[in-house]
């Protein structure tokens, strides 16, 4: 079958999948009865509605003609990976991961890690990265520690201090 609108198709499938997932999970909770609705009733209703709307979008994408075919275009894998990985690394280094026994490492390590990850994914000159790391480090200290007084570590506890 010829796809007439790629974006709408993907949206519809995504919505329908989410709706089915929510509705299916909700059906395992008690639905209650008309006088006293259970915890599963509202999510089941919403999930079913979401599925129906997703299906409608899929139908629209397959039937109605669009000018440019609603092409999705290239995915921005590199920036996406850079932003997400940098967030995860920065969060893990700054706050630590108590589940895995990782202690907080502090700003001094987290900021360079962040800039390094961004450097790997997005073309930047070395001087620019260094400048950015310095600016971010300084800004972090000024905003979060000095101005807002947030309890952030500056360096790992193992280094003393």
């Amino acid at each position, binding site marked *: 079958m010829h796809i007439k609108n790629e974006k709408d198709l993907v949206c519809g499938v995504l919505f329908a999948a989410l709706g089915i997932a929510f509705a299916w999970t909700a059906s395992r909770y008690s639905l209650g009865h008309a006088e006293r609705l259970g915890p599963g009733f509202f999510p089941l209703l919403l999930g079913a509605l979401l599925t129906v709307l997703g299906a409608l979008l899929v139908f629209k994408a397959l039937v109605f003609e669009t000018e440019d075919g609603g092409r999705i275009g290239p995915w921005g894998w590199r920036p996406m990976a850079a932003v997400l990985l940098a967030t995860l690394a920065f969060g893990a280094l700054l706050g630590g991961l108590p589940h895995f026994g990782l202690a907080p490492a502090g700003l001094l390590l987290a900021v360079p890690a962040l800039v390094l990850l961004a450097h790997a994914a997005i073309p930047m000159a070395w001087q620019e990265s260094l400048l950015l790391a310095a600016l*971010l480090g300084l800004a972090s200290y000024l905003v979060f520690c000095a101005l807002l007084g947030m309890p952030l570590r500056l360096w790992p506890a193992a280094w003393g201090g």
Partner: protein
Amino acid sequence: MEFLQHLAFGLGVALAPAQLPLLLLAWILGALCGALPGVRPVALMALLLPVTLQLSALASLVLLAGVFGGVQHGGLVRATLAGTLERPPGLLAVLGLLRQRQWRLALAAAQLAPLLAAWTGVLALALCSLWLNAWAQQLGAAESLALMLLLLVGAVVLAPGPLLKALPMALLGLLVGLVGLDTQSGTVRFAIDLPVLGLSNMHGIGILAIAIGVFGYGDVIHRLAHPSAPPEALAARTPGGAAGAPAGPQAAAGSRPMGPLRARLLSSLAWLPMLALGLPSQGVLALVAASLVMHQIPLGARMLDGRPELFWGLLASLLLGNLLLWLLLRPLLAMWPGLQRLPYRWSCCWAPWGSTAAAAARSMSGCWGLPAWPAMPCAAWKWSPRPCCWALCWRR
């Protein structure tokens, strides 16, 4: 007279040392951001959202309102320089005075007109929201529910883009709001055995994660992935387009750009539905609503009743901010060419930096929700996350 007393009270609150530096910072930051071609105000405000967690409700309101107002005026500066506005401020009025040979008055009017227009807008906002509030006070429980439903429908209908995408987004927002502990029955819903989503997290998935993910990260990733994408139409970010009349932002954006005086006059009125009824008419205001919800401030009419200092402080901060930008207009115009040369790719660092650091200090569980959301490429595909965010605001 009572009105003036209230306004003086608001000025006192906004000029307090806890608020004043934030006010200055926010308006200048917003104006710079509005003058830059690449940075979108929604992304900037979403990334500022975690910072507001560390502030008082009033200070965060002043901060976000300042960024919003500054962005609108920065856009005006850009549009003036780019020549999309048809005539310099207040030309007609000044010409009239010149014709009557009142030279000194004409000069003063030309300089004061933008400020007076902005102030008139803020005063109109104050009067309108007081009037609407008085009306909203008389509503009972049944009317409130009806109003909430109306607003939910309004959020869906007013969202840019097709209805068939706005509606599922609102539903999705409601569903995401259900994750976590059900206060009625004590059941933990949709936790998929993750402690982060289950009992250890009483508040479910935070609106913070959603707002930053869909408004902030989505935008940043999209801009980085398509550096050559044509910048959005200038009119979309000047007050005439973006703020527009509260009732019809799309209609305003579609028409030709407004004159700067009218744009300044209307720029504050975008707050009206938000202050009087709790309906954010734009994505940016949905983020302000999110910030208020995080501070457990009731939205809409109850805010004026319960927390008058927020309402009057906000109005006073709008007055002061407009004054500040009026004073700063000339230096801003001079700085503009230099600002344009800042590379946008730096944002791939500042985006994770600001949001994570602030979220991490509060609770780590907040920041793990962040990376899951940009996977929904809202910004790229032109569907608005606003209904989703807004539905989350109203979940309790």
